[in-house]
């Protein structure tokens, strides 16, 4: 419940902070923090225009996409406080409900019959497919480590924060858990960048259809639908931010927890902005390689977990 609310609040600011970071890094003043949200609200108040070549698939796709993210949010916990629902294997539910949303956005793009959107859809499908093993190896490793299979149980038994409590012993295992959490953060940040079609995989600011991935898929969407899709991106960012925050929240007292949550979201947005400012995006053909790196980092976590739990050697 609390995570749902906090994710909603941070989704309002996330893109604003990201864009502001980029503006400041390039020496511009940049728009206000709320500008992306204002644009979305403006779009939401508009009607949508539909091409005559599209069918009902194209019309329901943005709504299904948005709904899938909302459904995925239900299982995201807040430290030791569970989300709306929590059950064994809910991270599988999380991944595939998002995949369903993606599936609809892909067939929605194909529905327009445009060669650009077909290209974008095929790229999006390919890159999402490559990102999937990274997420599952990561979450699988953590369930192996903790012996649980739901987000809530995994996060509440990691106990990363409690080591800071006075009198707590710092063992080798603790250090290793921190290393794991940092690696997991890296993987999650990069999955979030891939899934949200940001740099270095995709360039959200380009006007060049031939190089786009996600942007080209939504070329035909307008008004309310476009607003919904744009807001879903903010929401997804905040959702991945919440997952990252969860590694460090543990059983922290609520006021500190909330503060830490927003700090993590803020740092996430700023680092995403900095990545986009100081490097060029990848060549399209190098993207699969890059996304595979995420899987290999996840594998690293997996082997570390095997070592930790004594299943290896």
């Amino acid at each position, binding site marked *: 419940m609390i995570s749902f609310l906090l994710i909603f609040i941070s989704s309002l600011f996330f893109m604003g902070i990201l864009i502001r970071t980029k503006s400041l*890094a390039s020496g511009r003043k940049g728009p206000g923090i709320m500008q992306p949200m204002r644009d979305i609200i403006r779009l939401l108040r508009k009607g949508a225009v539909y091409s005559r070549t599209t069918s009902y698939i194209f019309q329901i796709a943005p709504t299904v996409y948005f709904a899938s993210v909302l459904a995925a949010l239900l299982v995201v916990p807040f430290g030791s406080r569970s989300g709306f629902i929590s059950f064994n294997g809910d991270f599988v539910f999380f991944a595939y409900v998002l995949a369903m949303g993606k599936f609809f956005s892909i067939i929605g793009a194909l529905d327009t019959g445009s060669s650009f959107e077909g290209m974008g859809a095929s790229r999006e499908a390919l890159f999402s497919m490559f990102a999937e093993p990274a997420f599952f190896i990561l979450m699988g490793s953590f369930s192996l480590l903790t012996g649980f299979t739901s987000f809530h149980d995994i996060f509440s038994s990691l106990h990363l924060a409690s080591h800071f409590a006075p009198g707590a012993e710092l063992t080798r295992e603790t250090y290793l858990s921190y290393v794991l959490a940092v690696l997991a953060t890296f993987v999650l940040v990069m999955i979030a960048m891939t899934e949200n079609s940001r740099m270095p995989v995709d360039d959200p600011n380009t006007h060049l259809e*031939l190089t786009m991935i996600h942007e080209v898929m939504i070329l035909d969407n307008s008004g309310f639908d476009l607003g919904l899709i744009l807001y879903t991106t903010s929401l997804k960012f905040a959702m991945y931010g919440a997952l990252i925050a969860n590694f460090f929240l543990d059983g922290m007292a609520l006021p500190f927890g909330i503060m830490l949550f927003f700090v993590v979201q803020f740092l996430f947005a700023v680092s995403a902005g900095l990545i*986009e*400012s100081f*490097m060029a*995006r990848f060549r*399209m053909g190098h993207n699969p390689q890059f996304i595979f790196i995420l899987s290999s980092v996840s594998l690293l976590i997996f082997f570390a977990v095997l070592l930790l739990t004594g299943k290896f050697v």
Partner: protein
Amino acid sequence: MNCTNIKNNQTIDHAEIPILVYDEFLQINAVETSDLQNLHCVNYFAHYFNDKIKLICCIADDDSHTIRVSSSVVDKNQRLSSFTKHNTTFEKFEREISENFGIKYVDHPWLKPVRYPENQFDKKNTVENYPFFEIHSEELHEVGVGPIHAGIIEPGHFRFICNGEQILHLEIQLGYQHRGIEELFLKKKKLLQKILLAENIVGDTPVGHTVAFVNLWESLCGFDASLKLQFDRFLALEHERIAIHTGDLSAICTDIAYQLGSSVFGRLRTPIINYFQIWAGNRFAKGLIRPFKTNFSFNTELLEKWKETIAKYEPDFREMSQTMSTLPSVLARLEKTGIVSEETVRALGCVGLSARASGSERDIRKTHPFGIYETLNHQPIVKRHGDVYSRTQIRKEEILQSIDYIRKMLDEMPAESKNITEKYQPAPSSFTISLVEGWRGEICHCAITDENGELAVYKIKDPSFHNWTALAMAVRNNEISDFPICNKSFNLSYCGHDL
């Protein structure tokens, strides 16, 4: 003699151009030039001549710094053997001649429309029924881009034949921007109208084209520009090169989503292009170059201002170039992307920086210098790889070279000269050719006057004319998502091609 040798900007009597039998004309211009690297065609065009068609071919000889001009007279509707069969650099020229005059070349491999002019020979040739190269395959797919561009640039239609993400073939259909500039040069009788036309041939090369026009016009009128006038024109040309190259670097960074480079080069371009505003009241230097005179003579005050502008520009530019050329993610995008081999460049007759990026040394400033360039002893910057990175590096180095040249020349700024008051008229029945190395490459203007001294033929060749084909070759076997960066690295003009 089967041809006349003239210098750049030299006016000769129209009758001095030898008229050859077509077979001999073909032999000396196409067959004999095909293997020689120092010879390339700068302009090949036709005009009506007593109910017949006269073909005029201008071949530039880089070693002797001369231009060979020869001509041939053929009948309308005559079926001719094409130059292209022997020398592919004539491909575009012959397409244009065929489109305008209805000459049917029997062995031209690619006789397609160029720009659908209003007075073309076959009125049924329209933009709608362009004969695209087609493939019939289940596995390949076509992607059409344009003519309405997603950005703010001009219209052109690109049709890709792709195997998945890989481009197998690109066909570029242009002609949407055709305004009949060459015809307008004949219709507009006032000199001011003509120079305004020259300014607007290509929006991003006003200095290049106006210098080509004034050189030509002054030569036709037998006017020798004072050293100061030539100095001003040299300055404007090199400054335009700095300005546009910097803007291009910014655009290349934008296309690979390198925000730092994009905004820093963008910021650096502004004071450079604004310098023209200070000098001539227009950021693109419109109104700066005028025949016989200048309305905005370069003075010591402007000199100081220029030094000040560059003093601020240069350190930042060097730092940003250094950062950009050492950043792995940038290099990964630019290197080995859009390669054009030297062989291809020569076969297509490419000019300018796109040719120099592939190892061709072609540079009018060196081979056919005029004015200040004659004393400059210019050494062209040449890269060998022919990829996007080479074209980026050439821009960086040419900027620094141009700054050096201007700096060197500012020390010996010639004294102010008075604008002349007497009127000059073009010589009757004359032919003149003018070559200028604009920032994009070789600009060629040719003019023929009638017996009253009025323009009878005006022919323009912009560097984009041939280089568009090089772009189509560059993207082959590249990823389709790399097309925009290849395109940007050439930065060709649509209206320069379409005229």
